[in-house]
């Protein structure tokens, strides 16, 4: 198993003010598999992703990657195993650094050498070229920035790629390009993928198995095919399915609106 999560809990605050962003999350992803986490804001899906990435030091429970249990602090070698592509293509690149600088940093940190060749190869892999190499993020389009983010994630040759809503901030036409790129890279490099999104269609396109999260917990584990057939048990999942089809004139549960807690 490439990714194993056992009873992962992430909470903030103590006592009466304790808030569980993620509670008792357990799942397993096989090597080479693409697993999706779907849910709305506040569902805990991004928190789980960040716990897998090792960005949350106070996460409880067990996170094991490629057979190795991860401790509170990750070693440099462990950092090479898993990388992430973030949601906001502008926010995930340093505004004052050229593409070249952004891609060179991981190489320098891990002392991989051959920086020039690696950077060129990484750019080519994501469909960009030398003309983009010395540009700043604000000189690139959203889709191009996301490609750079993907290049940066892959330059360390990780086994596991985490995707945090990678296409939510992109136009439909650009989203298709990025999804195709991710599909191709997954096939070519044999990556294990854990992807988070609120969009069922996007998740079902890339992932085979899917977990639905609501308020910090996994409420149902299903497959893309089952979702497509509407073969789901949990009422929340059913509601998600209805909403994903567009405007649902039946309105859903109006009561839900007023009982949504303070954001």
């Amino acid at each position, binding site marked *: 198993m490439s990714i194993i999560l056992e009873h992962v809990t992430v909470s903030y605050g103590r006592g009466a003010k304790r808030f569980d962003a993620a509670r008792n999350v357990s799942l397993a992803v096989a090597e080479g598999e693409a697993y999706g986490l779907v849910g709305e804001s506040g569902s805990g899906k991004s928190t789980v992703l960040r716990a897998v990435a090792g960005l949350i030091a106070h996460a409880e429970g067990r996170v094991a990657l490629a057979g190795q249990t991860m401790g509170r602090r990750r070693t*440099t070698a462990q950092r090479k195993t898993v990388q992430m592509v973030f949601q*906001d293509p502008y926010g*995930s690149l340093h*505004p004052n650094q*050229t593409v070249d600088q952004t891609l060179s*940093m991981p190489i320098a*940190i891990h002392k991989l050498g051959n920086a020039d060749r690696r950077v060129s190869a990484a750019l080519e892999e994501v469909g960009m070229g030398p003309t983009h*190499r010395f540009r700043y993020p604000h000189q690139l389009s959203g889709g191009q920035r996301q490609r750079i983010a993907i290049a*940066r994630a892959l330059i360390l040759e990780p086994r596991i790629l985490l995707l945090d809503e990678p296409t939510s901030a992109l136009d439909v036409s650009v989203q298709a390009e990025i999804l195709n790129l991710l599909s191709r890279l997954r096939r070519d490099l044999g990556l294990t993928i854990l992807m988070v999104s609120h969009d069922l269609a996007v998740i079902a396109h890339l992932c085979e198995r899917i977990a639905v999260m609501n308020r910090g917990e996994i409420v149902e584990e299903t497959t893309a095919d089952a979702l497509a057939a509407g073969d789901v048990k949990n009422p929340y999942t059913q509601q998600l399915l209805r909403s994903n089809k567009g405007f649902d004139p039946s309105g859903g549960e109006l009561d839900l609106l007023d009982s949504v807690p303070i954001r």
Partner: protein
Amino acid sequence: MTTWRGWLLNPAPTSRRQAQLGGWFRAWLAFRRNTLGMAGLFIVLLLITIAVAAPLIADPATALTQTLEDRLQPFSWAHPFGTDELGRDIMARMMFGARITLTIVILVSLIVVPIGLAIGLPAGYFGGWIDAVLMRVTDIFLAFPRLILALAFAAALGPGIENAVIAIALTAWPPYARLARAETMTRRSSEFIQAAELQGASHLRIIATQIVPLCLPSVIIRLTLDMAGIILTAAGLGFLGLGAQPPSPEWGAMVSTGRAVLLDHWWVATLPGIAIFITSLGFNLLGDGLRDVASGRG
């Protein structure tokens, strides 16, 4: 000129240097459109030019030698700005005074910015007790009115320009620490910082390569706006006899000694005062222009 411009504005640079210079050039083009900012820049450049070229234009001797027969002369061809109470040429003194002002400005900047960053960055980045301790130290310094604290330091250290610089620097750094801390805290949870952590970057690397470049613009802008205050504090110290010592032609000291003859020989005190005013104004306008460009209002 066209080829240079074309090279700098090339949308597909082929080297890091080209990209960086291109970025600076574009910022310059944006700044150029700000008239007041350009006026400020002109004044500051004028100050620097005069300070550097002083010994070439005026004879240092005229600035320092006392010629009592010539004292308190009004404007003339020999002495375009007149002479002071000891017969020294005021224009020459003002030009050499510019050197002193510039020295103070540069030295204070070189001290204040590193201290401010060194205290503010870790406070914002690490938070917790590090933040608490560093900020309390900052608060202590901030609790005293700046001029009075500078006076106290200057009095304790003794008169002289170097001590004046130290005194001013010691009172000027707290706002920069606060600024650096605020900027760091804002950026701390940015996704590119998370990406750097994810890659295994050490704290030092993140602070130095990712956060410092983001803090510098606001710190520099703040510095230019503070210049006026620094110059005035230096002039104030000089006025009170705690900064530059006679016969040094520091502008504040000149205003101070010129007070005695203000009514009949107004130029002795007023002209250095105007110099202080124009210089402060220049830095203010420059700072405003930089801030407008940085915040995109152009």
